[in-house]
Protein backbone atom coordinates (compact mmCIF):
# COMPACT_ATOMS: atom_id res chain seq x y z
CA UNK A 1 0.00 0.00 0.00
CA UNK A 2 1.38 3.48 -0.87
CA UNK A 3 1.23 6.74 1.06
CA UNK A 4 2.93 7.36 4.36
CA UNK A 5 2.69 7.14 8.12
CA UNK A 6 4.57 9.43 10.48
CA UNK A 7 4.37 8.06 14.03
CA UNK A 8 5.24 10.81 16.51
CA UNK A 9 6.15 9.32 19.86
CA UNK A 10 6.66 11.56 22.89
CA UNK A 11 9.23 9.61 24.85
CA UNK A 12 9.89 12.70 26.96
CA UNK A 13 6.30 12.50 28.21
CA UNK A 14 6.59 8.75 28.77
CA UNK A 15 9.76 9.33 30.82
CA UNK A 16 7.99 12.03 32.84
CA UNK A 17 5.11 9.66 33.53
CA UNK A 18 7.51 6.93 34.63
CA UNK A 19 9.14 9.42 36.99
CA UNK A 20 5.87 10.55 38.64
CA UNK A 21 3.81 7.35 38.42
CA UNK A 22 6.47 4.68 38.54
CA UNK A 23 5.54 3.25 35.15
CA UNK A 24 3.78 4.27 31.95
CA UNK A 25 0.02 3.99 32.53
CA UNK A 26 -2.92 4.52 30.20
CA UNK A 27 -3.81 8.18 29.64
CA UNK A 28 -6.94 9.57 31.26
CA UNK A 29 -9.61 11.14 29.08
CA UNK A 30 -8.41 14.64 29.97
CA UNK A 31 -4.89 13.69 28.92
CA UNK A 32 -6.14 11.99 25.75
CA UNK A 33 -8.11 15.12 24.92
CA UNK A 34 -4.94 17.22 25.09
CA UNK A 35 -3.08 14.79 22.85
CA UNK A 36 -6.01 14.69 20.45
CA UNK A 37 -6.29 18.48 20.30
CA UNK A 38 -2.64 18.92 19.40
CA UNK A 39 -2.70 16.08 16.87
CA UNK A 40 -5.64 17.85 15.18
CA UNK A 41 -3.71 21.15 15.10
CA UNK A 42 -0.70 19.45 13.54
CA UNK A 43 -2.92 17.87 10.91
CA UNK A 44 -4.71 21.16 10.19
CA UNK A 45 -1.39 22.98 9.62
CA UNK A 46 -0.03 20.24 7.37
CA UNK A 47 -3.20 20.22 5.29
CA UNK A 48 -3.16 24.01 5.02
CA UNK A 49 0.44 24.01 3.75
CA UNK A 50 0.04 21.00 1.44
CA UNK A 51 0.12 21.88 -2.28
CA UNK A 52 -3.43 22.26 -3.57
CA UNK A 53 -2.71 20.94 -7.07
CA UNK A 54 -2.01 17.42 -5.88
CA UNK A 55 -5.23 15.63 -6.77
CA UNK A 56 -6.39 13.39 -3.91
CA UNK A 57 -3.46 13.61 -1.50
CA UNK A 58 -4.63 16.66 0.41
CA UNK A 59 -7.93 14.91 1.01
CA UNK A 60 -6.24 11.74 2.23
CA UNK A 61 -4.80 12.93 5.53
CA UNK A 62 -5.91 11.55 8.87
CA UNK A 63 -4.44 11.01 12.32
CA UNK A 64 -4.76 8.31 14.96
CA UNK A 65 -3.49 8.17 18.52
CA UNK A 66 -0.77 5.70 19.46
CA UNK A 67 -1.77 2.69 21.53
CA UNK A 68 -0.75 2.24 25.15
CA UNK A 69 2.03 2.11 26.31
CA UNK A 70 3.23 4.61 23.68
CA UNK A 71 2.19 8.26 23.95
CA UNK A 72 1.79 10.16 20.69
CA UNK A 73 -0.04 10.09 17.41
CA UNK A 74 0.38 9.04 13.79
CA UNK A 75 -0.04 11.41 10.84
CA UNK A 76 -1.05 9.35 7.80
CA UNK A 77 -1.84 9.84 4.16
CA UNK A 78 -3.19 7.02 2.01
CA UNK A 79 -2.75 8.66 -1.42
CA UNK A 80 -0.62 6.58 -3.79
CA UNK A 81 2.16 9.09 -4.28
CA UNK A 82 1.85 11.33 -1.22
CA UNK A 83 5.33 10.32 -0.04
CA UNK A 84 6.86 11.98 -3.13
CA UNK A 85 5.07 15.31 -3.04
CA UNK A 86 7.36 18.35 -2.75
CA UNK A 87 7.18 22.07 -3.31
CA UNK A 88 8.16 23.41 -6.72
CA UNK A 89 11.89 24.11 -6.87
CA UNK A 90 12.71 21.86 -3.89
CA UNK A 91 13.15 18.12 -4.31
CA UNK A 92 12.74 17.29 -0.62
CA UNK A 93 9.52 15.32 -0.06
CA UNK A 94 7.19 17.15 2.31
CA UNK A 95 6.91 14.04 4.48
CA UNK A 96 10.57 14.71 5.36
CA UNK A 97 10.40 18.50 5.63
CA UNK A 98 6.96 20.00 6.23
CA UNK A 99 5.62 17.22 8.45
CA UNK A 100 8.51 17.22 10.97
CA UNK A 101 8.55 21.03 10.92
CA UNK A 102 4.86 21.22 11.86
CA UNK A 103 5.32 18.56 14.54
CA UNK A 104 8.15 20.62 16.04
CA UNK A 105 5.99 23.74 15.93
CA UNK A 106 3.61 22.25 18.50
CA UNK A 107 5.79 19.78 20.41
CA UNK A 108 6.97 22.07 23.20
CA UNK A 109 3.44 23.21 23.98
CA UNK A 110 2.08 19.66 23.74
CA UNK A 111 4.75 18.31 26.07
CA UNK A 112 4.15 21.09 28.58
CA UNK A 113 0.36 20.66 28.51
CA UNK A 114 0.46 16.89 28.72
CA UNK A 115 3.05 16.70 31.51
CA UNK A 116 1.01 19.24 33.49
CA UNK A 117 -2.11 17.16 33.01
CA UNK A 118 -0.25 14.04 34.10
CA UNK A 119 0.97 15.85 37.21
CA UNK A 120 -2.60 16.89 38.04
CA UNK A 121 -3.79 13.32 37.58
CA UNK A 122 -1.08 11.98 39.84
CA UNK A 123 -2.00 14.54 42.51
CA UNK A 124 -5.62 13.38 42.34
CA UNK A 125 -4.44 9.77 42.58
CA UNK A 126 -2.42 10.65 45.68
CA UNK A 127 -5.37 12.44 47.30
CA UNK A 128 -7.63 9.49 46.50
CA UNK A 129 -5.24 6.99 48.01
CA UNK A 130 -4.67 9.10 51.13
CA UNK A 131 -8.41 9.27 51.75
CA UNK A 132 -8.81 5.52 51.44
CA UNK A 133 -9.83 5.40 47.80
CA UNK A 134 -8.57 3.18 44.99
CA UNK A 135 -6.23 5.76 43.57
CA UNK A 136 -5.90 5.52 39.80
CA UNK A 137 -8.92 3.20 39.46
CA UNK A 138 -11.10 5.93 40.93
CA UNK A 139 -9.73 8.48 38.47
CA UNK A 140 -10.04 6.43 35.27
CA UNK A 141 -13.27 4.59 36.00
CA UNK A 142 -15.50 7.65 35.88
CA UNK A 143 -16.03 10.47 33.40
CA UNK A 144 -13.11 12.90 33.60
CA UNK A 145 -13.46 16.43 32.33
CA UNK A 146 -16.54 18.25 31.06
CA UNK A 147 -19.13 16.38 29.03
CA UNK A 148 -19.39 17.40 25.38
CA UNK A 149 -21.89 20.26 25.01
CA UNK A 150 -25.37 19.44 23.69
CA UNK A 151 -25.45 19.72 19.91
CA UNK A 152 -27.78 22.51 18.88
CA UNK A 153 -30.51 21.57 16.45
CA UNK A 154 -30.24 23.23 13.06
CA UNK A 155 -32.90 25.73 12.01
Amino acid at each position, binding site marked *: *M*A*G*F*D*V*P*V*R*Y*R*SVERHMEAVHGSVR*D*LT*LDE*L*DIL*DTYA*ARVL*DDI*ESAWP*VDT*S*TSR*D*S*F*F*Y*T*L*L*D*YPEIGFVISNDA*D*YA*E*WIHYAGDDTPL*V*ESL*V*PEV*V*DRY*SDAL*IAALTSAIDRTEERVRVSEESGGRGL*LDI*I*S*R*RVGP*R*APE*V*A*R*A*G
Partner: protein
Amino acid sequence: MPANVEVTTTIGFEDLDGRLRDAERAVLARFERKILRYVRGEWTGWTYKGRPKNAPRNVSYRAWKSTLQTTQAPYSLDVTNEARDYRAKQPYVAYVHRSGDPTPEFVKLSERIAADIVPEMAAAFAAEIRRTLEPRPRKKLRSRGTTPRVTRSLER
Protein backbone atom coordinates in the same frame (compact mmCIF):
# COMPACT_ATOMS: atom_id res chain seq x y z
CA MET B 1 -22.73 -7.78 11.34
CA PRO B 2 -19.31 -6.26 10.51
CA ALA B 3 -17.64 -5.21 13.75
CA ASN B 4 -15.78 -2.16 12.44
CA VAL B 5 -17.70 1.11 12.30
CA GLU B 6 -17.82 3.25 9.16
CA VAL B 7 -20.33 6.07 8.84
CA THR B 8 -20.29 7.89 5.50
CA THR B 9 -22.05 11.16 4.88
CA THR B 10 -22.31 11.98 1.17
CA ILE B 11 -22.61 15.56 0.05
CA GLY B 12 -23.94 16.01 -3.47
CA PHE B 13 -25.37 18.96 -5.28
CA GLU B 14 -26.75 18.90 -8.81
CA ASP B 15 -24.35 20.47 -11.33
CA LEU B 16 -21.54 20.67 -8.77
CA ASP B 17 -18.44 18.72 -9.75
CA GLY B 18 -14.66 18.96 -9.64
CA ARG B 19 -12.35 19.85 -6.76
CA LEU B 20 -13.82 22.15 -4.13
CA ARG B 21 -12.29 25.54 -3.58
CA ASP B 22 -10.36 26.11 -0.35
CA ALA B 23 -13.17 28.11 1.22
CA GLU B 24 -15.73 25.44 0.35
CA ARG B 25 -13.51 22.64 1.63
CA ALA B 26 -12.84 24.61 4.80
CA VAL B 27 -16.56 24.57 5.59
CA LEU B 28 -16.72 20.79 5.36
CA ALA B 29 -13.43 20.41 7.25
CA ARG B 30 -14.83 22.53 10.09
CA PHE B 31 -17.79 20.16 10.41
CA GLU B 32 -15.53 17.15 10.05
CA ARG B 33 -13.69 18.29 13.17
CA LYS B 34 -16.98 19.08 14.91
CA ILE B 35 -18.40 15.63 14.22
CA LEU B 36 -15.20 13.87 15.30
CA ARG B 37 -14.99 15.84 18.53
CA TYR B 38 -18.68 15.15 19.17
CA VAL B 39 -18.22 11.40 18.69
CA ARG B 40 -15.17 11.33 20.95
CA GLY B 41 -16.91 13.48 23.53
CA GLU B 42 -19.85 11.07 23.66
CA TRP B 43 -17.66 7.93 23.60
CA THR B 44 -16.95 8.12 27.31
CA GLY B 45 -18.30 6.86 30.61
CA TRP B 46 -17.78 3.17 29.84
CA THR B 47 -17.61 0.73 32.73
CA TYR B 48 -14.78 -1.72 32.24
CA LYS B 49 -16.43 -4.45 34.26
CA GLY B 50 -14.05 -7.29 34.94
CA ARG B 51 -11.16 -5.75 33.05
CA PRO B 52 -7.83 -6.25 34.84
CA LYS B 53 -6.33 -3.14 36.43
CA ASN B 54 -3.39 -2.96 34.04
CA ALA B 55 -5.37 -3.73 30.90
CA PRO B 56 -5.68 -0.90 28.38
CA ARG B 57 -8.68 1.44 28.42
CA ASN B 58 -10.03 3.91 25.92
CA VAL B 59 -8.87 1.67 23.07
CA SER B 60 -11.90 2.43 20.94
CA TYR B 61 -11.83 6.12 21.93
CA ARG B 62 -8.39 6.47 20.37
CA ALA B 63 -9.45 4.68 17.20
CA TRP B 64 -12.07 7.18 16.00
CA LYS B 65 -10.87 8.93 12.85
CA SER B 66 -12.33 10.90 9.96
CA THR B 67 -11.47 11.52 6.34
CA LEU B 68 -12.89 14.09 3.97
CA GLN B 69 -13.02 13.65 0.18
CA THR B 70 -13.47 16.88 -1.75
CA THR B 71 -11.70 16.15 -5.02
CA GLN B 72 -14.71 15.07 -7.02
CA ALA B 73 -18.46 14.84 -6.49
CA PRO B 74 -20.16 13.36 -4.63
CA TYR B 75 -17.99 14.64 -1.79
CA SER B 76 -17.96 12.51 1.33
CA LEU B 77 -17.10 12.54 4.99
CA ASP B 78 -16.21 9.21 6.61
CA VAL B 79 -16.08 8.60 10.35
CA THR B 80 -14.59 5.22 11.17
CA ASN B 81 -13.47 3.06 14.05
CA GLU B 82 -11.42 -0.09 13.52
CA ALA B 83 -10.38 -0.74 17.10
CA ARG B 84 -9.30 -4.25 17.96
CA ASP B 85 -10.05 -6.07 21.20
CA TYR B 86 -6.87 -6.01 23.30
CA ARG B 87 -6.99 -9.77 23.85
CA ALA B 88 -8.53 -11.35 20.76
CA LYS B 89 -7.31 -8.63 18.36
CA GLN B 90 -10.74 -8.71 16.69
CA PRO B 91 -12.89 -5.71 15.71
CA TYR B 92 -15.71 -5.08 18.16
CA VAL B 93 -16.82 -1.45 18.11
CA ALA B 94 -20.04 -2.13 16.21
CA TYR B 95 -21.24 -4.23 19.15
CA VAL B 96 -20.51 -1.67 21.88
CA HIS B 97 -23.66 -0.55 23.72
CA ARG B 98 -24.67 1.04 27.01
CA SER B 99 -25.83 -1.14 29.88
CA GLY B 100 -29.54 -1.90 29.59
CA ASP B 101 -29.79 -0.69 26.01
CA PRO B 102 -29.22 -3.20 23.18
CA THR B 103 -28.87 -0.51 20.51
CA PRO B 104 -25.23 -0.22 19.41
CA GLU B 105 -23.85 3.11 20.54
CA PHE B 106 -22.55 4.01 17.08
CA VAL B 107 -26.08 3.70 15.69
CA LYS B 108 -27.39 6.21 18.22
CA LEU B 109 -24.49 8.57 17.55
CA SER B 110 -25.04 8.31 13.79
CA GLU B 111 -28.70 9.20 14.18
CA ARG B 112 -27.91 12.21 16.37
CA ILE B 113 -25.25 13.43 13.94
CA ALA B 114 -27.62 13.05 11.01
CA ALA B 115 -30.34 14.95 12.84
CA ASP B 116 -28.29 17.62 14.63
CA ILE B 117 -25.10 18.34 12.67
CA VAL B 118 -25.54 17.27 9.04
CA PRO B 119 -28.38 19.73 8.29
CA GLU B 120 -26.27 22.58 9.66
CA MET B 121 -23.30 21.37 7.60
CA ALA B 122 -25.38 21.15 4.42
CA ALA B 123 -26.77 24.65 4.95
CA ALA B 124 -23.33 26.17 5.59
CA PHE B 125 -21.88 24.38 2.57
CA ALA B 126 -24.73 25.50 0.32
CA ALA B 127 -24.27 29.08 1.51
CA GLU B 128 -20.57 28.98 0.62
CA ILE B 129 -21.33 27.50 -2.81
CA ARG B 130 -23.86 30.24 -3.53
CA ARG B 131 -21.35 32.85 -2.45
CA THR B 132 -18.71 31.77 -4.93
CA LEU B 133 -20.94 30.33 -7.66
CA GLU B 134 -19.36 30.23 -11.07
CA PRO B 135 -18.85 27.55 -13.79
CA ARG B 136 -16.45 24.82 -12.66
CA PRO B 137 -14.18 22.77 -14.94
CA ARG B 138 -14.64 19.00 -14.62
CA LYS B 139 -11.63 17.17 -13.12
CA LYS B 140 -10.40 13.66 -13.80
CA LEU B 141 -8.36 11.43 -11.55
CA ARG B 142 -5.45 9.63 -13.17
CA SER B 143 -3.96 6.61 -11.52
CA ARG B 144 -0.18 6.88 -11.19
CA GLY B 145 0.39 3.35 -9.94
CA THR B 146 1.41 2.34 -6.43
CA THR B 147 4.63 2.47 -4.42
CA PRO B 148 5.57 0.88 -1.12
CA ARG B 149 4.15 2.71 1.92
CA VAL B 150 6.67 4.94 3.67
CA THR B 151 7.07 5.27 7.43
CA ARG B 152 9.05 8.15 9.01
CA SER B 153 9.19 7.90 12.77
CA LEU B 154 9.66 10.99 14.92
CA GLU B 155 10.49 11.07 18.62
CA ARG B 156 10.29 14.09 20.87
